[in-house]
């Protein structure tokens, strides 16, 4: 019934720094179905933002390794040249809403132009037509037409975020990558933006990759959850399964650490600190902090085990 729209296979993204090679994305594979939203959850520095950049190929200058496959409806877009990628993929197929939405708008260009710009570039519309579409996109996210002539500094934080979303939607892409889209916003504004994203997803049949550090927030959008730790995806499961019974010890700990308002459970913390991506631990990257680690965990990096119906986990505990 559902088709796979995006597949990542052994995606790797390493940076070269003065301290050594940072293995930000290490052998990451996942599938994204049409109309599905995948929540990518992990603590800061786990490589989740790098993964987003690897998919839309926004690479920093100090890139060391960038390999693997990214299949968009079966086509390996890693094989495209930079120009082809820019013309065929960016914003036409995949759009992105950035973490620092506040800073994602050019301070000296008017809102209307910035929203319309992708149309001018990719669909070669004339200015009038593009503006009409931009106004429409802004209306969808709840911004009045009169703001078209305004500059970003005249907008509030929530409005900027909506503008950035409108900018991402204006070309009707298939996939929207949301990188912590509400991290700088207040809870009520955040809830409003989440409501908007939920509606858009239904109405426009969008596929989301939703990146967040907040397991509570991820449940707002997730059909499927992928947990990332030290540059690797540790567990993938559909939302119902994941929130009911996470399989990976790290996922379990992460769930347990979340303070909740409506339940009585006491949150626990995970002892130790996240590993460095330059010199990660041997074997399973989580083993130094894992309460159920055994011998093998420190020696061999576990493969991915399928627990049935697409529930994948990277942990020796599930070896037969």
């Amino acid at each position: 019934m559902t088709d796979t729209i995006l597949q990542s296979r052994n995606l790797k993204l390493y940076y070269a720094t003065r301290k050594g090679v940072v293995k930000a994305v290490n052998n990451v594979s996942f599938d994204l179905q049409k109309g599905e939203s995948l929540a990518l959850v992990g603590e800061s520095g786990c490589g989740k933002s790098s993964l987003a950049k690897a998919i839309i190929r926004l690479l920093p200058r100090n890139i060391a390794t960038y390999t693997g496959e990214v299949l968009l409806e079966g086509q390996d877009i890693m094989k495209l040249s930079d120009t082809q990628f820019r013309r065929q993929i960016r914003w036409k197929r995949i759009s992105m809403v950035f973490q620092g939405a506040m800073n994602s708008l050019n301070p000296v260009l008017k809102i209307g132009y910035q929203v319309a710009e992708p149309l001018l570039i990719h669909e070669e519309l004339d200015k009038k037509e593009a503006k009409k579409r931009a106004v429409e996109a802004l209306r969808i996210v709840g911004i009045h037409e009169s703001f078209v002539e305004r500059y970003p500094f005249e907008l509030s934080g929530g409005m900027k975020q909506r503008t950035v979303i409108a900018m991402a939607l204006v070309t009707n892409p298939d996939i929207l990558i949301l990188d912590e889209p509400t991290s700088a916003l207040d809870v009520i504004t955040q809830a409003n933006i989440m409501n908007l994203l939920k509606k858009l997803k239904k109405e426009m049949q969008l596929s989301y990759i939703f990146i967040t550090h907040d397991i509570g927030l991820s449940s707002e959008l997730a059909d499927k959850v992928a947990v990332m730790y030290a540059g690797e995806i540790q567990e993938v499961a559909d939302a119902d399964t994941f929130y009911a019974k996470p399989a990976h010890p790290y996922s379990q700990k992460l769930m347990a650490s979340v303070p909740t308002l409506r339940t009585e459970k006491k949150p626990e913390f995970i002892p130790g600190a996240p590993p460095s991506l330059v010199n990660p631990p041997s074997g399973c990257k989580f083993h130094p902090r894992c309460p159920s680690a055994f011998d093998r965990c420190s020696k061999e990096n576990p493969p991915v085990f399928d627990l049935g119906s697409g529930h994948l986990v990277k942990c020796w505990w599930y070896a037969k």
Partner: protein
Amino acid sequence: MSEDEELLEVENLRKWFELRKGLFSSPLYVKAVDGVSFKLKKGEAISLVGESGSGKTTLGKTILRLYEPTGGTIKIKGRDITHLKSNELMWYRRETALIEQDPYGALPSFFSIHRILEEPLIIHKFGNAEERRKRVREVLEEVRLTPIEDFAPKYPHMLSGGQLQRVAIARALTLRPELVVADEPVSMLDASVRIEILNLLRELQEKRKISFIYITHDLTTTKYFSEKLFIMYAGKIVEIGDMLKVVHNPLHPYTEALLKAIPDPDPRNREILRDVPPGEPPNLVNPPSGCRFHPRCPYKMDICQKEEPPVFEPENGRFVLCWLHAKK
């Protein structure tokens, strides 16, 4: 009755910041804190919750007299400190402490951990070098940065975020204060460390009988921490009450909205739209007339636009700034 002794009494406190004014135009003010009153008992821990720009941080820092209040009074142990000059405030500085949000910026990078913890002691002329060293060891032990010999000579850039925040907490404790204001002490830390730090704070607060103001935008973390909840919106405290009572039965529409907006991890969330008011908090230069929440309030009445609501006490110990609870 010493347990019930009032430590802090804040009365109609206001803090307005002057905006850059032109040569001929009248000055504009950001009314960050605009008429706040409350009392705090000795050893009591409260949480002050509000969104960014609600004035919660300003309130905390004004209480610590890092800002000079524009109006109202602050009394500690019955003593008025509202307009004392900085040299008359030294005793107050000893009795109070601040823990900041950003552990990476809260410590001077060019001092060692030992020196950082010693600074308040030097400033307040506490004992000799040996006594100061002893106190530094004591607080480091209290925040469990052990072995002390390893940590004391280190510099901040050698520590992790969680460890830095422990140093900041230790520094707040070196002078054995009676009142501590913690301004979002965990919001910049990773989820897994947050609970650890909150637990530590709670433990120290109870052990040392410190009066504690925990400032946060995250309602969920308050539950494990304090007995009382203060909800702040647009420069005013709109609701005060016992933690559990407020969470289960919010009186102010804004509190209600806040509670509704919080996502607990639950896969059913994706099926529902949250019933939250539209819009964003108002500009504090020209706040709305009457009740400041009225433009977003789903229960808005005529009077809300015209008159500012006074404090109502619909239940014993619960205070709310909302016309819905006016005694008919």
